[in-house]
């Protein structure tokens, strides 16, 4: 039983990370029907900006005296930076192609992903960059189950960000404008919504969430590398599809399911550790076979963001 609970905690932590990254995919898809393949790179960029900021703060002793304040500052700045990066990417690579075929935008997204990844490699080097992780070493033991401070932090922060995102989309005027734009760009423009601004904002929010995931993963695992965005990007994409692309709750759920399947496969299936990625995608294929629009997807594409 302890074994199962421990694996459950592991799964939900990994799932939280996937969920945060998946939200950006789903929001962008919801609003302009684009699978933004460069999204994983915002996650990686977040990890890197995070390590640079935290190392700077650590060098000035702030991580020793006020670790949580330091982490908060780094988190906000990282999210802000990646939000701006995403708006720039949108302006350069996607906006000029808004009237073009979907394939053109998709290729542009793939190109952007390669460009950003190589940019990271050339500016930051091919080696791992280490996070200052001393202050995150704590944890609690419940019998044989150990829950580390980082696991609590990842889940707590994921929960806060998810609640905040939901409030933004369903309780504010900006959220209303986003939903309206997703439903019908032309009509919402006619009633005075600046759809270009709303689209840019959607990119910014999605990237900020991915950036938060990047910095959390950096702290959790202790280091980041330039190509760290690729695999979580693919997993989060799968999570978004699993949940029903365009659906926020679905993306969260999809993220947690993919994370959980991965961990449980590694834990209980013989040689599962080698094939855990396969199991995650088997689940994806099975769900899509029986529910082509994903778990939470609607048949008609209206209530999206």
């Amino acid at each position, binding site marked *: 039983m*302890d*074994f199962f609970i*421990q*694996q459950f905690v*592991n799964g939900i*932590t*990994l799932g939280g990370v996937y969920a945060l990254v998946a939200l950006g995919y789903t929001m962008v898809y919801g609003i302009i029907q684009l699978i933004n393949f460069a999204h994983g790179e915002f996650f990686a960029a977040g990890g890197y900006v995070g390590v640079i900021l935290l190392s700077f703060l650590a060098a000035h002793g702030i991580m020793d005296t006020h670790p949580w304040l330091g982490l908060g500052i780094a988190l906000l700045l990282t999210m802000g930076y990646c939000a701006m990066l995403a708006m720039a990417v949108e302006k350069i690579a996607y906006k000029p192609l808004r009237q073009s075929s979907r394939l053109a935008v998709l290729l542009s997204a793939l190109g952007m992903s390669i460009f950003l990844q190589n940019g990271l490699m050339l500016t930051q080097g*091919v*080696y*791992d960059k*280490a996070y200052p*992780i*001393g202050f995150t*070493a704590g*944890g609690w*033991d419940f019998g*044989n189950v*150990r829950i*580390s401070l*980082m696991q609590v932090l990842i889940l707590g922060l994921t929960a806060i960000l998810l609640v905040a995102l939901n409030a933004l989309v369903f309780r504010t005027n900006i959220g209303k404008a986003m939903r309206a734009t997703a439903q019908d760009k032309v009509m919402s423009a006619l009633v005075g919504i600046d759809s270009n601004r709303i689209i840019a904002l959607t990119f910014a929010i999605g990237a900020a969430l991915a950036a938060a995931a990047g910095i959390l*993963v950096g702290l959790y*695992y*202790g*280091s980041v*590398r330039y190509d*760290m965005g690729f*695999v979580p990007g693919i997993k989060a994409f799968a999570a978004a599809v699993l949940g029903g692309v365009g659906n926020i709750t679905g993306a969260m759920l999809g993220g947690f399911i993919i994370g959980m399947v*991965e*961990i*449980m496969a*590694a*834990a209980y299936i013989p*040689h*599962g*550790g*080698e094939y*855990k*990625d396969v199991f995650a995608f088997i689940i994806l294929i099975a769900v899509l076979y029986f529910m082509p629009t994903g778990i939470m997807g609607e048949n008609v594409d209206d209530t999206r963001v």
Partner: protein
Amino acid sequence: MRRILATITTVALLLCAGTATAKTLKIGSLSPLTGPYAADGNDIANGTRAAIAVMQAEGGIPGYDKIELFAEDTACDPRQAVAAANKLINEGVVGAVGAYCSSATIPASEALAEEDIIMITPASTSPKVTERGLPYMFRICGRDDDQGPAGVKFMKEFLKAKTVFIVDDKTTYSQGLATEVANNADKNGIKVVAHDHVNQGDKDFSAVLTKVKQANPDAFYISLQNSSSGALMMIQAKRMGIKAAFIGQDAVYHPQLMEIAKDAAEGAYLTFGYTDKATPEYKKFYNAYKKISGEPGAYSAYSYDSAYVLLTAIKQAGSTDAEKVKAEIMKLNLKGASKQLKFKENGDSGSDYVIFKVQGGKFVPFWNPSTGKTM
């Protein structure tokens, strides 16, 4: 008109004569310069550079004005390794240092062997590297069947371990070594509670580490082909509260391990070839290396020795003919930067694995399997 032609011909002849005397000795290096193993791969290329610099400072090789290195990237990929080897063949190299992953070294060495080009590996530990009977294949580092038993001996005699949990990442190298450890543990009365696998490039090891925690073994053998994967595993294992003694191997042995894992690496044991850093040979290597790339990495001294052996043999043979150079290599018995360099009939140079312990952020020589004593 005739005069102009004559002048041009004369100048052209002079130029040809000029290039004919400026002879360049071309040697190659094969290692992963990009991708997850780039850290070790660049150390190998730089170690070779250091050997060339030292050889040139010592007067170079008679008949050659210059020694040039062609450093090719294998990316630890069999196909790319063969492509890189073919590139070296086209460049006309007389010998190559490399590669890094056994899975890349083996196919690359087949390509080089067809052209009778000498290959000396500083880092590939699979027994298959030298056991295929290729005439021009040599190895500076030890072998899996030396390293595995060294680790097992340490677990049995020093740690008095009764149980061991083994994890590898399914590469030719890591799996070969892990299997070697598993077989030896069995023979020595240490129970292998599990031999699990992860994927290369995995970052989340929580599932397998939970299994380790549940099994509660005396020793936890980490066979991963990457120091950063090793660091990630140590961080997560410490956080999870795993109390088993960590034992890793040469691919995890890299200064980057401590940089990333920090406190989590403290107390971990690693098997690696012993190098006496107080010898003048090591200092000569260290000073040359420092000028090129800062602090040496795990395989820097091995790759330096590989290139130094190759160049010394060419110098002594007075020829680049593979058979003559090989004869000189077999005659060598010289003090290298990493160890005494003397080759056996099959191309191996023997093992000198000892157990290192991470203490205060440093790899400290700790236990010698041949004497069974702490160092």
